[in-house]
């Protein structure tokens, strides 16, 4: 039942053919591959957009079971920001700013929060937005039956009956414990506001207050949204957006190059593809700066990495800038093992030292001179393997001998992640500081990928939640970052720019964290 011609005879010629086709790809795309590598644009094109027009977006669908219910773990992400609003959102520096809530304040100890809601906001079906809708939406997230990823976070804060509406435009939330950062937890992309009583059908109707209203939606298929004239912040520039599901990355890029679509969402193009795309006459590349947070978790429960000296040596041994230069070809910024991106207001601007000799000394002291172990990678994300290889090369000077092991992408996050002592991983940036540190670094959190535990650090997080003074709270978060840099088991070698493929006709594309500017994006006039 096997093909008659043995596979090997095909494979042998394959290598040459691949090279030829690669060359063809570059020349055909209209790029003259001279010595200078084509540069990837720093920023997206801005300018006057034509009024109206339809944008075509290709997206990788989550699954055939995807839904427009933002609370669900299977939400169709690209639609959410266009259809709905949250009470609050994050600005580029990670500060909580108004969306449907205009203003908010807490009592002295941060246990009762009062949100003043925007007046005159309408849902797509004409209903007026009130506090009852906000309470209903948050209850829907808290409902264990929804199994919302943000449910776990919020249910630790809000008890049953904790929410009330003193008047239609005021929302009062009583917390179980003080939390000075509570509003920031409502910025998650699971926290979009839906009309009261709509949870059963919201997954198909998509009725929200956002700049676009739904006209059609098929899970893992096509969908369309139309400009909503009554949006409180004004009508969007575009008349509408059409979404298409294309699972294969190459197919998405081909569709862009052939002019069948205008934007590829949620796809970090690998550097070589980004070069081809930016060299083409129809398409180009824009960056979502520092959108990809790359990590190298060292399993805290493993023999070697339970020793703080070994963890410190693994950090001192490498210079993150060289990792950015080799693994990302410079399209990102060095992390220096601090998980907070430099753009954030709470960022601790202290660069740790780079000292391979000290790393060597620490290893010797820990009895691990010439540490030899495996670092796992996979094709799950295009930068994983370049990162693992760059890190392996970088730590050689400190006498650390790493062997790069490639694991199946399919089971990477079920069989390698949180199980092998050393691996590469990544997250999207865009979490508010409280959620970032509590979710990924706190003792026992289900997302704590290195299983690190440090009581002093946990204590700082609690102290920050109880600290209502903004300046003093920022200092506590910075102390927490210092402990992460010095002691944590999760290294942050770098933040990568997401390289987004889009048509040369698209203007005013802007995306950071989990925010996409659906109001201003348009097609060139």
């Amino acid at each position, binding site marked *: 039942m096997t093909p008659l011609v043995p596979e090997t005879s095909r494979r042998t010629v394959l290598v040459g053919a691949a090279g030829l086709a690669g060359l063809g790809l570059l020349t055909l795309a209209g790029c003259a591959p001279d010595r200078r590598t084509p540069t990837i644009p720093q920023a997206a094109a801005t300018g006057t957009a034509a009024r109206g027009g339809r944008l075509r977006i290709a997206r990788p669908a989550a699954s055939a079971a995807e839904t427009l219910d933002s609370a669900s773990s299977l939400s169709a992400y690209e639609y959410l920001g266009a259809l709905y609003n949250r009470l609050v959102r994050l600005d580029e520096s990670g500060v909580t700013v108004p969306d449907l809530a205009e203003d908010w304040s807490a009592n002295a100890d941060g246990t009762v929060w009062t949100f003043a809601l925007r007046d005159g906001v309408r849902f797509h079906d004409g209903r007026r937005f009130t506090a009852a809708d906000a309470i209903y939406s948050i209850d829907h997230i808290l409902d264990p039956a929804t199994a919302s990823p943000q449910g776990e976070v919020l249910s630790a804060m809000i008890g049953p009956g904790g929410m009330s509406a003193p008047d239609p435009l005021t929302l009062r939330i009583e917390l179980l414990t003080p939390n000075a950062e509570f509003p920031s937890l409502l910025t998650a992309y699971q926290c979009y506001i839906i009309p009261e009583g709509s949870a059963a059908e919201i997954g198909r109707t998509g009725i929200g207050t956002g700049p676009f209203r739904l006209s059609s939606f*098929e899970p893992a298929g096509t969908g369309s949204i139309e400009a909503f004239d009554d949006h409180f912040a004004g009508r969007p520039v575009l008349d509408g957006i059409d979404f298409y599901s294309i699972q294969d990355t190459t197919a998405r890029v081909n569709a862009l190059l*052939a002019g069948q679509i205008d934007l590829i969402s949620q796809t970090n193009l690998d550097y070589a593809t980004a070069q081809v795309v930016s060299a083409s006459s129809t398409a180009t590349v824009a960056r979502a700066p520092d959108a990809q947070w790359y990590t190298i978790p060292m399993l805290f429960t493993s023999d070697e990495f339970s020793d703080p000296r070994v963890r410190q040596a693994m950090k001192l041994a490498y210079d993150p800038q060289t990792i950015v230069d080799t693994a990302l070809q410079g399209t990102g910024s060095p992390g220096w093992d601090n998980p907070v991106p430099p753009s954030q207001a709470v960022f601790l601007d202290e660069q740790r030292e780079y000292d391979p000799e000290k790393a060597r000394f620490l290893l010797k002291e820990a009895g691990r001179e010439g540490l030899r172990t495996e670092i796992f990678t996979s094709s799950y994300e295009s930068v994983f393997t370049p990162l693992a290889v760059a890190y392996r090369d970088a730590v050689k000077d400190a006498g650390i001998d790493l062997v790069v092991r490639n694991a199946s992408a399919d089971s990477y996050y079920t069989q390698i992640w949180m199980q092998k002592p050393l691996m590469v991983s990544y997250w999207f940036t865009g979490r508010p500081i409280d959620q970032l540190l509590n979710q990924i670094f706190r003792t026992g959190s289900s997302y704590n990928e290195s299983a690190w535990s440090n009581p002093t650090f946990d204590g700082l997080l609690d102290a920050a939640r109880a600290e209502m003074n903004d300046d003093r709270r920022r200092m506590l978060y910075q102390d927490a970052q210092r402990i992460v840099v010095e002691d944590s088991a999760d290294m942050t070698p770098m933040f990568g720019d997401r390289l987004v493929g889009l048509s040369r006709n698209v203007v005013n594309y802007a995306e950071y964290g989990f925010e996409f500017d659906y109001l201003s994006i348009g097609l060139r006039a």
Partner: protein
Amino acid sequence: MNASIAPTVLLVLRRLATALLTVLLASLFVFFAVQALPGDVAQQLLGQDATPDAVAALRETLGLDQNVWLRYGNWLLGSATGDFGISLVSGEPVGPDLLVAFRNSMLIAVPAMVVGVALSLTLGVIAGVRRGRPSDHTISLVSLIVMSVPEFMVATILVLLFAIAIPVFPAVVLRGDSATVAELLPAVWLPAIVLTLAMAAYIVRTARSSTIDVMASEFVTTAELKGLTTRQVVWRHAVPSALLPTLNVVALNVAWLLGGVVVVENVFNYPGMGKLMLESVFNRDLPTIQAIAVVSALVYVVCNLAADLIALALDPRLRTRRKARS
């Protein structure tokens, strides 16, 4: 004459029985292979954080706590009537989705088959007859090159040429699963060409070598000595004999198309069976994977059965039970 019909019928019946048995064995293998996968359907559905109680409850609802042979029997009976169960992901019956995907795949596979087989047999015979001449060298070289380049590469090159550089055809099917036949028509050309090329190369090579063998045989020499023109010798005498050994290669290649479409359909985002298969594997949609595997096995068996029956019809030696010298 009458005496030879009965053994022929018997032969055909025996061949049909073997085919049926093969399909049954394939279904058995597929079913138990899927059972052997780590984690069961209930676990897959509920995810890793599911409580043991919830998993047990769902196992009961899905009938997973029943005896495995009983479940196999039920599944087999259902499959025979086109009821392949419920998709774990979409929650809808697998059958209708599979049917649409199968139809879409046939939309590219059938033209590829017809054109590919006709073209490659002709080219193979020409190359065989003109052995050693420039036309033979060209045909052999080109087919060797096409054979060596994998389908996704051919697909990418064609997309670059005819969708991006000279935009005649669409690069992908934008509307995916919801595309109608009319919407698919402009998009079937490139994938069909890729499949044609991938398949044709093997057949050209086999047809060429079997033509060479036949052209060197005694009865062809006799025909030539009888004073027939080359054209008559080739098309009346040599080709029918040369085609017989090629038939099985054609059958296997036609069935192999089903494997080829997996890669090709993904490059073109073409909503056929190959793409459905990849997505179901990715989503661990076990009932769909099971159904696709059985349908693929069925196509393999039917293709081979057809090849055998055609051979039986073409070659009297196969019907007359070892009366021939071989």
